[in-house]
C-alpha cells in the first residue's frame, strides 16, 4: 500500500556568490532540513587532505609532528573527492592507502642557503596529481599574484633543511576537522518586522530617535522629511529584543512586532577553498541523499517482520 506524500517543494534564491563565499535564501522547508544541510556541509562533505607524512630530513625549529599537523591543515583542491575512494574501503591497495584511486602523493624539498630566512610554504608542495594541489588564494583575496606566497609551513635559517613525502587521502570533517570544506556555515530565520504606525505616531521626535538608536544593529532609521521610522534592514536584526524592551520602557508595548518566519532561512556559506561554495552545497545535498538512502529498511528486515507480524496477529487473536 502506498501512503500519501507529504513532500515539500523548497525554493532557493542566490543573493551573493564568490568562489569561497555564498549567501542564499532557502524557503518552504523547515529548520530540520536547514540544519541537516549545515551539519552535512561542515562535517560530512568529503575533501582531500594530507594524512600521512614521512619525514626524510628535518633540521628546522619545528618538530616532525608539528610540521605533519600543519601540513594536514592545508586545504587542497578537492573537486575530485566526491568520486574518490576512502582508503579504508579501497580494494586496489588493500587499505594501505597508497594507490592512485584513494591517495595523492606530495613531495617537499627545501633548504636555506642564504642569510635571509626562507619561508617554506604550501607552494613548495609538489603534487603527483595536478587536480589535487594546495589551494591558491591569490585570486579571491584580490591581491597581486606576485605578492601571494601560499600558506607558510615553517621558516628556515641558513643551513636548515626540510625534506619529506606526504600522502593525501579522502576524508570527512567528522573524522578530523582538517577534512572539513567549510570555514563557516550559518543560517538564520528571516525576520518579519512590523511597526505599529498608530503607536509610533504617538511618540515625539526625540523618542523616535532614541528608539531607533536602541537597536544595537542598524535595523531602523528615522526619516527626517516624513518624520517616520522606517525598517531599513530587517536582516540586520539579531533577535536581541532590545527594541522591544525599549518600547516597553517607553510605555508603548507592541510598538514593533518581530516574527521569525519559520519556513524561510538566510544561509551564508564560507568555504576553505577546497571546493567552491556553490559546489559545497550541491555536494552536501548529494551526501545527505546518500545518507537517507543508507537508512532505508533492508528487504530481509521487512520480510522478517511480515512473518513475525502475522504470528503476532495470531497471538493477539486476530
Amino acid at each position, binding site marked *: 500500500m502506498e*501512503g500519501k506524500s507529504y513532500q515539500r517543494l523548497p525554493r532557493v534564491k542566490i543573493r551573493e556568490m564568490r568562489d569561497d563565499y555564498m549567501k542564499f535564501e532557502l524557503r518552504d522547508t523547515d529548520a530540520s532540513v536547514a540544519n541537516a544541510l549545515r551539519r552535512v556541509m561542515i562535517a560530512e562533505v568529503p575533501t582531500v587532505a594530507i594524512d600521512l607524512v614521512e619525514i626524510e630530513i628535518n633540521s628546522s625549529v619545528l618538530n616532525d609532528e608539528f610540521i605533519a599537523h600543519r601540513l594536514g591543515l592545508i586545504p587542497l583542491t578537492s573537486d575530485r573527492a566526491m568520486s574518490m575512494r576512502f582508503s579504508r574501503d579501497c580494494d586496489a591497495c588493500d587499505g594501505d592507502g597508497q594507490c592512485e584511486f584513494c591517495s595523492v602523493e606530495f613531495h617537499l624539498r627545501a633548504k636555506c642557503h642564504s642569510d635571509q630566512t626562507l619561508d617554506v610554504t604550501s607552494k613548495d608542495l609538489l603534487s603527483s596529481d595536478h587536480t589535487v594541489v594546495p589551494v591558491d588564494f591569490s585570486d579571491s583575496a584580490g591581491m597581486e599574484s606576485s605578492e601571494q606566497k601560499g600558506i607558510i609551513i615553517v621558516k628556515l635559517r641558513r643551513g636548515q633543511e626540510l625534506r619529506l613525502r606526504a600522502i593525501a587521502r579522502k576524508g*570527512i570533517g567528522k573524522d578530523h576537522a582538517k577534512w572539513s570544506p567549510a570555514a563557516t556555515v550559518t543560517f538564520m530565520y528571516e525576520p518579519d518586522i512590523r511597526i505599529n504606525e498608530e503607536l509610533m505616531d504617538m511618540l515625539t521626535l526625540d523618542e523616535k530617535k532614541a528608539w531607533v538608536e536602541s537597536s544595537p544593529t542598524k535595523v531602523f532609521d528615522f526619516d527626517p522629511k516624513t518624520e517616520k521610522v522606517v525598517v531599513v534592514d530587517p536582516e540586520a536584526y539579531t533577535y536581541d529584543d532590545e527594541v522591544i524592551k525599549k518600547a516597553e520602557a517607553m510605555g508603548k508595548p507592541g510598538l514593533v512586532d518581530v516574527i521569525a518566519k519559520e519556513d524561510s532561512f538566510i544561509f551564508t556559506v564560507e568555504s576553505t577553498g577546497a571546493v567552491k561554495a556553490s559546489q559545497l552545497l*550541491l555536494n552536501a545535498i*548529494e551526501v545527505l541523499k546518500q545518507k*537517507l538512502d543508507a537508512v532505508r529498511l533492508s528487504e530481509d528486515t*521487512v520480510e522478517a517482520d511480515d512473518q513475525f507480524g502475522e504470528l503476532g496477529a495470531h497471538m493477539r487473536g486476530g
Partner: protein
Amino acid sequence: MNAPDRYERFVVPEGTKKVSYERDTKIINAASFTIEREDHTIGNILRMQLHRDENVLFAGYKLPHPLQYKIIVRIHTTSQSSPMQAYNQAINDLDKELDHLKSCFEVMLLRWQSIQWSTNRHSKNCKEAYFDKRCQIIVVCCHANLY
C-alpha cells in the same frame, strides 16, 4: 594508546545492521528503529518529516549516549498506517525534497552565472583572465537555453 579508531564514529562495524526494527510488544502500530552510526542530522529530519504525516501519532528520536554512535527513532501510528510504512514514506518524501532542492539550486546557479557574465562584459575594468573564465560559463548557459 587504547583510543578507539576515529572512523568508528561513522563506519558501521561488520556483522551489524545499519537499521534494525523492533515492534512494541504492548502497543499495536508502535515500533522503534535503531539506526547505527547516525546522529541528529538524520534523526531530526526524519522526526520532523514524520510529524507532517497525519497518521503518525508519535515520532521521536534519541541519541542514547554521545559515545554510542546510534540513534533510536520511535514511531506510533494510527491503524490506517504502520510504523514501517510511515518510516519509508518519510524517507521517500525527504529524498524527493532534496531532489527538488538540488534542481532548483542548479537552475538558480545558471541564472546567476549568466547575469554575472553579462554585467561583467559591460564593465570596462574587468580583468582579462576573469573574462576568460566567464566565457566558459556562457557556453554552458547557451546549451541550457538550447535544450
